[in-house]
């Protein structure tokens, strides 16, 4: 047994002090992070049960803020929109990222240039993205006008003004902004597929489709999960982009929970209502993440017992 361990056995106090820097290095950042997250969440939950309007005050109003928020049209519209936007955006941005990655994986000339072109939108701030796309998608000055001007006069692309379709304009702008990240992840994944597996499959006579299904896509599965998580985070918290692109309009057609929270907390001076909306947002998130966490837990148990 090494000498140091023998000494530490006999003097646990010395051992503890010697390990103090390590202990601090591990725990201080993690506790700061976890601590602030938990305390901020708890604070918001507390505020949601108070009668706070302009500034936080103490008091107890039970579930009044929650029932009021759930009964608000803006929230109901926002909730529906989140389901549509969330699922649509995540699915489409994953597909777009995959498509871009497959294309770039074909060893084309100028791959570096194309990769930079698909990645640069990540560098742009959300406010700029929303503003520029609001110009491009405006039928009077943007894409529709351009296509009409080129001769195809019956072309219409006025989703921005259409109360049913406006939410999809946000999907378009959001995909432009963030598909580069998905592409980067998938490209990394495609490039890390085990060449032996591919050779084995080729020897077995597998065609391209089967190659993808049996070898490549399963390798990409863990990466897909990460992409979905990051894009989900974007979908739930996105705020600046929507505000700049549609402002929640036309009318109230593209309200989203993050906008409602900001609107009620800060614009309307109704802190407690806004806090209740924020807590509801977190509950929606839990509803999505808990089943996934449970599934992963079961998976691990299975593979441990297998």
């Amino acid at each position, binding site marked *: 047994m090494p000498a140091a361990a023998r000494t530490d056995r006999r003097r646990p106090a010395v051992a503890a002090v010697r390990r103090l820097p390590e202990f601090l290095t591990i725990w201080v950042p993690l506790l700061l992070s976890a601590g602030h997250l938990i305390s901020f969440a708890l604070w918001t939950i507390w505020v949601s049960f108070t009668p706070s309007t302009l500034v936080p005050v103490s008091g107890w109003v039970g579930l009044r803020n929650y029932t009021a928020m759930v*009964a*608000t049209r803006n929230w109901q519209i926002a909730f529906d929109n989140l389901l549509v936007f969330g699922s649509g955006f995540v699915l489409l941005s994953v597909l777009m990222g995959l498509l871009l990655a497959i294309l770039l994986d074909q060893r084309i000339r100028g791959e570096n240039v194309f990769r930079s072109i698909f990645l640069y939108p990540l560098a742009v701030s959300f406010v700029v993205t929303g503003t520029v796309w609001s110009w491009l998608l405006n039928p009077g000055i943007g894409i529709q006008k351009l296509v009409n001007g080129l001769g195809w006069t019956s072309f219409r692309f006025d989703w921005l003004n259409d109360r049913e379709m406006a939410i999809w304009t946000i999907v378009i702008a959001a995909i432009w902004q963030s598909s580069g990240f998905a592409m980067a992840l998938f490209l990394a994944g495609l490039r890390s597929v085990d060449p032996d597996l591919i050779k084995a499959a080729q020897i077995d006579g597998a065609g391209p489709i089967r190659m993808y299904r049996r070898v490549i896509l399963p390798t990409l599965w863990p990466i897909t999960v990460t992409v979905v998580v990051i894009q989900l985070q974007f979908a739930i918290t996105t705020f600046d982009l929507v505000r700049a692109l549609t402002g929640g309009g036309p*009318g109230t057609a593209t309200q989203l929970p993050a906008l409602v929270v900001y609107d009620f907390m800060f*614009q309307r001076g109704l802190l407690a209502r806004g806090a209740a909306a924020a807590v509801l947002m977190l509950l929606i998130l839990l509803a999505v993440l808990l089943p996934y966490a449970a599934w992963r837990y079961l998976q691990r148990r299975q593979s441990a017992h297998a």
Partner: protein
Amino acid sequence: MNKITRRAMLASTTGLIAAPRLARAQAVKPRLTVISQWSAGSDGAAITALGKKFEEKGGTWQHSPVPGFTTEMMNKLRAQIMAGDPPACSQLKGPEIAAWSKIAATVNLDALVAAAGYEKVVAPDLARLHKPGGKWISLPLQIYSTNMLFLSKRAMDKAKADRIPVTWAEFNALAENMKAGGVTYPIANGGTRPDDGQKFEAALAGISPAAYRAAMMTLDEKALKGPEVKAAFAQARRIADWMDPNTAAQHYSVNLPRFVAGDMGMMIQGGWAQGVLLNAGFKLDDFIIAPGPCDNGKPVFLLNADAFIFWQRKEPDLQAGQTLMAQLVMDPAIQTMYSQITGSIPVRTDVDLSGAGWSDGQRRTAAALKEAVAANQAVLSLAHNMAQENGMTAAIIDVLTEYVKNKAMTPDQGVARLSNAVEGAR
């Protein structure tokens, strides 16, 4: 040793007691910390000019403009108040003044207001907003009307019209004539939330100022469900139908080129639109400004006014700064300077606008205000947060903006949704 020490101590203590009085007698250099949202454009220029005047009088001016809109400014104000460090003076307006005055201590300005004789020259509805507890705690600075009628000269020519419409019926007739004469879209308004609010409030105030007062300012239930409100929704629907369907949520300024060219006919906008038109390079003889339509013959004035609120501070130099600022803001010369820069009209009803620095539009607006006050038809704008607190205003505008964008909504549905929204936000 003891005798000397005791006498010395007595002398020094007396000196200490005397010192504060001495300091008060000396002049304290006034200083002012200001928070506002006016960082650019003519608003920014105006407040910078005000700051220069403050410094000319010997003060130190410390203005922190908060970029963004009013919400960002309020966030900053809230953060400062929560940190225990409110600015000596900040921008605030409307019923929010009363609401915010409950969360932090303000300065009682009664003495200064009385000394300047200010209360006599301010419109009563406006003065009321600045005295939430019966005492003056804030001072209004400039007035805009939100229901001015802008007419494109070229569009008027196309409609072969030579009279400015005075009632809503005449307005509607003119719009039809414009359409018949080849004006593609008779209305050039935008689609932002305040803009949608403006369309409705101009309609309601024009149909019946008394109904507007009852419904929008007092939130009387019967008035909210009454025939005037329904008629206002119907008029708003007509206005919306005459607009370019591609407007969506855009700012009205994107329509200005077509407005001037005669492809769009009329705008119901605040007086600030004149400044916007001129800054865009258009000329005064491209358009006509008139008061918004009112059905009972006398002008109705929808008031929008900015103001400064004064937060209590212990520091003597900030207190001196507040006194100086209050005096400046009530001064007719300063109000003249400010309004000439921004294109608004002064708060004081006794300012003479016949001088060179004023435009016809401003003169017409000031005259409209005077007449409206005399006829008790100067009301507070809902769309610009003067009639109600932000929460209630936002709830009402939710209904209005959806109504304007959703052509399938009927006036009856509008009325129902409106009263629901008001009840829900009470």
